[in-house]
């Protein structure tokens, strides 16, 4: 791999994206333990502190779900089915274990299936609550302790508060850097395209945090060096959804003649916008970040105030993105059979539209097989906005 050693920034991200898991495989060969996880709800800091490599699992939109359907009902959301299908087909044969946080029924109700059929040396179901009040934080801390205990047993290494603090610092740095890259999307036209961005996001989530930090820094340097482009004429789009983790839909959006400038997806801004407080006891700080700060629909938010207050608490960040990133239109892309996102659609849609930004709601499979129809809808949406 000598010829690749000079590869940097976007080129590196491209390779990590295209051959997802290539770096994890190398690290595995070096004797590192690779722990796969699903969802932005997994406290990666704990994994980093344990000295293992957190590796976010993704599905494959280009491959039909075949083997997985023999074990998992088709009423599970297609994203989860696709990840499981990839796993059972051996695409992640380099992982030593897996963490499945309790994000939603599609994950919760299939946790036995993951455990029993993948049969990994390490498996942990993190039973995170959905409610975010004080008792829930205390409960989450108990769950984190349990999580830590299982990891310690697995690695044979104690996880100290100091380890946690260091991991928190590194991941906060990671988030800060990524937000810096997002900054470069604010200009018009953005310095980095949505397609490039998703590649960086995917590449980053498959790396140990130090390498991820280095990659993002390189990308920022590379992108910053680009000539400031002349004024862009295309519409600026934000995409919203859960784990949208392939270029195809981004490509469809940009190919239809728009700039993809922002996201509220679980491999994107949802991962990077909220830091962990460093002035608190680590478990408390981690629990608070994952329950209260993380903006995912499975963290129940109720202000006790008016409905309008609740909406602001749940979706206010999207309005801020709209302003900061000068978003002209939003695409809400939800997978079928997803209750947590599905039940939010009317509320999100009307909330964003009330900010004067039109919303295209797409409910679809996790598959490129429907991409042609998606394109038509996206093009029509852009024509509608023109």
């Amino acid at each position, binding site marked *: 791999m000598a010829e690749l050693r000079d590869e940097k920034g976007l080129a590196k991200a491209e390779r990590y994206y295209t051959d997802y898991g290539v770096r994890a495989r190398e690290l595995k060969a070096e004797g590192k333990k690779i722990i796969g996880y699903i969802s932005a709800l997994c406290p990666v800091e704990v994994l980093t502190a344990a000295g293992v490599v957190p590796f976010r699992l993704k599905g494959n939109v280009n491959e039909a779900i075949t083997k997985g359907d023999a074990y998992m009902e088709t009423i599970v959301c297609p994203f989860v089915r696709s990840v499981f299908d990839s796993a059972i087909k051996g695409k992640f044969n380099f992982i030593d274990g897996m963490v499945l946080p309790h994000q939603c029924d599609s994950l919760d109700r299939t946790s036995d299936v993951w455990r029993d059929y993948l049969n990994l040396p390490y498996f942990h179901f993190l039973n995170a609550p959905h409610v975010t009040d004080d008792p829930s934080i205390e409960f989450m801390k108990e769950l984190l302790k349990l999580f830590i205990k299982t990891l310690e047993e697995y690695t044979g290494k104690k996880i100290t508060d100091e380890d946690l603090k260091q991991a928190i610092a590194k991941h906060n740095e990671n988030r800060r850097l990524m937000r810096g890259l997002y900054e470069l999307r604010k200009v018009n036209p953005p310095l980095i395209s949505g397609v490039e961005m998703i590649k960086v996001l995917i590449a980053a989530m498959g790396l140990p945090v130090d390498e991820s930090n280095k990659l993002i820094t390189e990308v920022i340097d590379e992108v910053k060096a680009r000539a400031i482009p002349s004024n862009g004429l295309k519409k600026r789009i934000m995409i919203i959804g859960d784990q949208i983790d392939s270029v195809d839909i981004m490509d469809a959006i940009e190919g239809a003649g728009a700039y993809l400038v922002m996201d509220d997806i679980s491999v994107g801004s949802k991962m990077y916008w909220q830091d962990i407080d460093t002035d608190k006891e680590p478990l408390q700080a981690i629990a608070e970040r994952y329950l209260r700060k993380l903006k995912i629909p499975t963290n129940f938010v109720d202000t006790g105030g008016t409905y309008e207050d609740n909406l602001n608490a749940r979706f206010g960040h999207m309005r801020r993105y709209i302003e900061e990133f000068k978003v002209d239109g939003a695409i809400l892309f939800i997978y079928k059979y997803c*209750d947590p996102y599905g039940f939010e659609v009317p509320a999100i849609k009307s909330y964003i539209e009330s900010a004067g930004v039109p919303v295209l709601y797409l409910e679809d499979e996790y598959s490129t097989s429907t991409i042609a129809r998606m394109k038509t809808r996206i093009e029509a949406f852009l024509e509608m906005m023109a």
Partner: protein
Amino acid sequence: MAEEKKGRAVATKTAASIPKFVRGNLAATLKAKEEGKKVAYAYIADGQDEIMRAMDIVPAWGESFAGVCAAKRDAEKYLQKAESDNFSRSLCTYATCTIGFDMVREELGGGAVPDAPWGGMGRPDMILGSAQLLCDPRFKWPQATQHYLRDVPVFVGSMYYPPFDPKMDHHEQEKFYVKYATEELRECVKFCEKHTGKKMDWDRLAQIVELSDRTWDLFIDTYELRKAFPTPMDTGDAMNTMVPLTFNLGTQEAYDFYKQLYDELQQKIANGEGVADPEKYRLIWAAGLPSWFALGDFQYFNSKGAVFPVEVTYRGCEKIERLELPKTNDPLEHIAWRWVRYWTHWYDKARKRPGSLPKVERIIEYIEEYKCDGVVFHSAFSCRSWHAGIIHQAETLKKVYREIPILILEGDIVDISSYNEADTHNRIDAFIEAVDSYKKRMN
């Protein structure tokens, strides 16, 4: 479209009184205003029944109302209404049916909805949801409802039990799970106090909890009578007789109902009266909510000589003594323990049989005790909570127990649009033949 399908003719007299119960529950929500009571949207098995009863809050059950709409084959208009505001068809249809109804009622000013099945439900004063078990809709549905009933406050509590992990002892964890659940129930009380303006009468609560415990016991005693040959009652009836336990827990009516059912079953056993004549095959309904619009399918089974002496669905309780609950004077803590143990009391057993699961242990135990020859699951497409993981349960059952015939029917609870009777009957026919050959093989 309201082509009313004749409901299933029930086998027991007691079950025939169920429509009265259901109507009564719906009517209570409409009458509550006159009586100065508060109405709460509530969700079954959330552990909050006794709190509501103790505070004279009238529960309005969307799950019951949507079931009624489905059974009357009159849910489509509400499903469509919800869909018109972008609620996907793949979401829980209890929720989307009820939300559709809410939307219609709001458009009519919040009062009665003239053409609603059985008069519909009254507008709630509060919504009492619950996160985590049992499902996502239990907390997303209340939130989504608030989009249409903006002034109605929402409470979402949290009732968790430790997940099963063959490598991990759950007993340690139970304590902090119970502590958490107790605190969340306390939050629920606070919320109810705030929105009813009343204080909780803790003695009354304790009495109601005690009554529920007795109802749990009586329910199980009654249902265990079904072990008899021929069984005096099958799942077709149980989908009705579950109503008092599920929707009226903590009321004397519920207790009395099971007393009456108990007596009737004993009588039938004495007379040797069964559900099918002759009873040739005994099946277990091993998971899944029923298709409310197709309860007649149970009769189709019966017509083939097949009966269901036992089901997992809606058997939402257990003999209290079997749960070995720690003593406590706090009724909320008692509810929490009862709730957690209801799920975990199968765990030790499951751990003893390598590769097994608690849900599978339960099925095995019932197969053995009720002498079943076949297993039927129903997979409803709009509810992941009870229906995702069924394939794995079936596989595990075959692996750790034995190759018993299994039928997985696919359908929905409310949405009739993918149901095909002829098709379902064909499948049942083939399954009965499989059960028949299994019985021959086992002999």
